[in-house]
Every structure is written in structure tokens, then in C-alpha cells.
């Protein structure tokens, strides 16, 4: 556990003791602000039937920046160690492979979670600075943040796997975007082909768009919890074995 803690803080430092983490934070804050302000503009122009949180997280800009956070956060994790050779020094110290994988995963994941502080502040401020009752309630706000953080656990694990596959950060980033995009499109299949196809319930089950819609209306559903947590466990498991691969490859 002590080894895990040392590795974890080392990774966390590489995000926040360099400009890197702060740049992503600034980017995320800017995009969150942009989607909130464009949504507010729509509110001022026409009557809206949905709550503000829902409309903000449904704005077209959301998926665009959301899916790009993960490659940026994770592409460096393993590929850089691979390229520079520091993996050799790391794995010949008395550390276990799961400690390496989990420390990197959780450092990236915690950084991702911290990226949502600006969004939380935006909505809190909106409620504080207006004398009108805010057009959303706490269930909707925390529901949206919960599902975003839940989706993050899986997408970060996908990014870790992509980073472990190659020694080039760029390729790791592209592979990560690819995996995320395929996952995103799978969730859209029911829209294109309708609910008549036999696999439609499966696609509904993994559809991040639908999860986001229901949670940002304040509907907590336990199925996405099961899905995202088991799937991230699976991707971490794959990452572990990919890193261990050199130990058993022919």
C-alpha cells in the first residue's frame, strides 16, 4: 500500500506540479463555461421545457470536449515510460505491476474528477448570483456530475489501455479517441436502426448519451453503475496483462 501511495503521488505530481494539469483544467473550465453560456442564450431566446443542467450537458459542444479530455489525460501514462525506457527502472524496483497500473489509473482518474470542480462552481454561482429560483435542482446537478464521473472511470481505463499499447504518445492518443468514438457510436445505433433490431436493449444498456440524459434529469439508475464499474475493471485488467506481456511473450 505504501508503494502504491508513493507511485500515486508521483503521478499526481506530474499532473499538478507541471503546467500540464493546469492547462487541461483551464481548457475544461473554458469549455464548461462556453456550453453553459450558449445554453443560457437559448434560454433567453425561447421557452425551454428542460432544466438548465440537462440542456447544458446536451449542448453539442459537450461530447466534443468531453471525449477529448481522456486522450489528453492518459496518452502519456505508459507510452512515455516505454519510449524513454524508464519502465525498465520502474519494474526492476521492488514494485508489483498492479501497483504501477492502479497508481497511474487512479492519478489520471482523480485529475479527471477535479476537472469538474469548475462546472460545479458555475452552477452554484448561477444559483447564488440570481434572485430568481435556479432552473434546476440539486438532484439534477449532482446526477449529471455523478454520471460524468462514472463515465470517466471507464474512459480513463480505455485511455490507459491505449497508452500501454504503444510507445508513441500520439498513437496512444489516436487509439484512445478511436476506442471512445466507437463506444460513443455504439450508443447511437438504436437511433439509426430503431428498436426493432434484436440487440437494441444491449445498445441502450451501454449508451452513454442515454445515461447522461436520464441522470441529468435527476433519475439515478443503478444499471450504469454496474456497467461502468465492471467495464473499467475489465479494461484495467487488460492493461495489467498488456504490461505483463513482455514477461510471457514467446
Amino acid at each position, binding site marked *: 500500500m505504501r508503494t502504491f501511495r508513493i507511485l500515486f503521488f508521483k503521478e499526481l505530481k506530474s499532473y499538478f506540479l507541471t503546467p500540464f494539469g493546469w492547462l487541461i483544467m483551464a481548457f475544461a473550465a473554458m469549455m464548461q463555461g462556453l456550453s453553459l453560456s450558449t445554453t443560457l442564450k437559448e434560454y433567453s431566446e425561447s421557452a425551454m421545457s428542460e432544466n438548465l443542467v440537462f440542456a447544458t450537458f446536451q449542448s453539442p459542444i459537450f461530447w466534443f470536449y468531453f471525449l477529448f479530455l481522456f486522450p489528453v489525460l492518459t496518452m502519456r501514462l505508459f507510452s512515455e515510460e516505454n519510449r*524513454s525506457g524508464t519502465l*525498465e*527502472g520502474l519494474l*526492476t524496483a521492488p514494485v508489483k505491476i498492479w501497483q504501477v497500473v492502479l497508481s497511474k489509473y487512479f492519478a489520471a482518474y482523480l485529475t479527471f474528477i477535479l476537472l469538474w470542480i469548475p462546472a460545479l462552481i458555475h452552477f452554484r454561482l448561477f444559483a447564488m448570483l440570481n434572485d430568481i429560483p435556479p432552473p434546476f435542482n440539486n438532484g439534477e446537478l449532482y446526477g449529471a456530475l455523478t454520471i460524468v464521473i462514472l463515465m470517466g472511470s471507464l474512459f480513463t481505463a480505455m485511455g490507459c489501455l491505449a497508452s500501454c499499447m504503444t510507445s508513441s504518445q500520439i498513437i496512444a492518443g489516436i487509439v484512445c479517441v478511436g476506442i471512445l468514438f466507437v463506444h460513443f457510436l455504439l450508443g447511437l445505433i438504436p437511433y439509426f436502426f430503431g428498436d426493432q433490431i434484436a440487440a437494441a436493449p444491449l445498445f441502450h444498456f451501454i449508451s452513454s448519451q442515454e445515461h447522461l440524459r436520464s441522470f441529468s434529469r435527476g433519475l439515478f439508475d443503478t444499471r450504469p453503475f454496474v456497467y461502468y464499474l465492471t467495464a473499467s475493471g475489465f479494461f484495467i485488467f487488460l492493461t495489467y496483462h498488456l504490461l505483463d506481456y513482455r514477461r510471457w511473450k*514467446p
Partner: protein
Amino acid sequence: MIEVANLSKNYGRHAAVDGISFEVSRGEIVGFLGPNGAGKTTTLRMLTGFLPPTSGAARIAGHDIFRESLDVRRHIGYMPENVPLYTDMRVKEYLRFRGSLRGLKGSQLRKRLGETLDICGLSHVRRKMIKTLSKGYRQRVGLADALIHEPDLLILDEPTNGLDPNQIRAIRSLIQNLGENHTILLSTHILSEVEMTCNKVVIIDEGKVKAADTPKNLVNSMRRAGRISAELQGPREEIETKLSAVGDVTKVTSQPLQDGWNRYTVFVAPNTDTRLRISALAHEMQWPLRSLARRSGTLEEVFVELTRRD
């Protein structure tokens, strides 16, 4: 300290290391030599647990390198080839990280940090980013990294690779000092370095051990060792026949020099010295003798003899 038995590593069909066996006992400084691609780095990576062996076994400090990899790794300090470091960390920060990974903490960590920085001559750059350091300093950081937890065994892969002569000297004397209370296994191409620092040499080529002995024994037992060169004046033919008749001499060749003297090269059996007999013979025959020298072989010649492919 290290027992290697029939260790092999195949990459696909290519055997990088092919059934090597050798031993290193506590307190020895062992040079691990071989041409490029001989399997040195692969062997060291197997010993440190980075790569698993295809077959065979090795034990370090009594622990199996595959089954008890973590115990093995606690006993070794390893400096990989080309010294990979986290370049965006500062020297002291990096060493603190590496030390605490090896289980040092609190006052013990602080004490070892200070000592290691001193030993490796890094005190004045301890606050610098590693990426701003020159190659020589990075090499020292790598060495400090291997040393910080006071390991029983140091494994250094080409510790002086790419350094200038002054830096090589500094690293060499550092290794010699460390050798007083550490076991060291170091791989290198620089043979003079091995002659000066190591008390045992293992030469491998194409994945196989070609020789393992002290540098002195290796040099003495080589085919061309013990060649004697003598400069004499007198009848060339006669001298050649007489010299050939001396015991242990296998062959004599001669070569006239500019000033009327002749140089004779006398080939003798390994591990013998015929100089006294030659000088006695010259005295007896009244040949003027102005130089008589035994050419001791060098490790370089041993190396070439064992690993040349022609």
C-alpha cells in the same frame, strides 16, 4: 551472490542468450564483456527480473530470479543501459522517489540521500532538473539511483558509455571505491577499464560464455601471450637456429633494423618465461644484446581472439 545455470532467452527463433552459466561471489567486481549483440543486456535484464528467461535458472542472494523476483529486486541496484530517468524531476526529488520505492523512509531516507549525493558528486546540482544535466551528470544520477538503498549487488549496464575520458575516470574510481563493500557486475566494451577495476571477467559471444576467469589468467593463457622480442647483433641465421633450440621456444622470426641490429621475435609456450635463458645464451655466444622484453598480452587481444569471426 549470483549463480546462473543454463540461462537462455529466445526472441522468436533467435537465441539471444544460449545456455550461459557463471558465478559471482560476494565482494567481487566482475566485468561482463562481449561484442555488440552478444546478449549482455539481455542477460542483465533477466537477472534484474525485467525479462523472464526462456529456460534455465539463476539465483541472486539465494532467491530465484523468476519466482522470488521481488526479493531479488530488493537486493540489487540496477543501472540500465543509456540510464533512463524521469527528466522533468529534480535530482534530489528523483532520488527521494526512488529511495522511498525501495522502502527507505524518514531519517534513514534523508541520511542516505545526503550520503549518495556526496558519493556521486551531485550535491551542487541536487536542485536542478534532470533534463538540464549533461550526460555525465545523468550517468551519476543513474548510479546514485542504483546505490541509494545500499544494495548488496550492483548491476551496471555500460556505466561509462558515452562519457569523456575525465568522466570515465571519475566513474571508474567511484566503482573501485564501491567495490570495497559491494558486489558489482558491470558490462562494458572498454577493456582497459575492466583490467583496472575488475577481479573477474566473463566474456560472452553469440549468447555463449567464452571465458570466465581473472583478467591475469586470461591474458597468460592466451595463445599469443609471452611473446619475447630481443634485439641482438650477430649472424642472423645462426642466432635464429640457436634461439629455436632453447627450451619452450616454439618459433623464431627475425627482422633487420635500420642500424645493423636485428630484432628477433621468439614465440614461446604459454605460462613460461625464457628471457633468462636467452640472455644467458647471448652472453655465452658473445652476441651484443641491447633489448630483451616479454610482451605481455592485453585483455584486448584475449577479447579479439575469443570473439573474432573470420
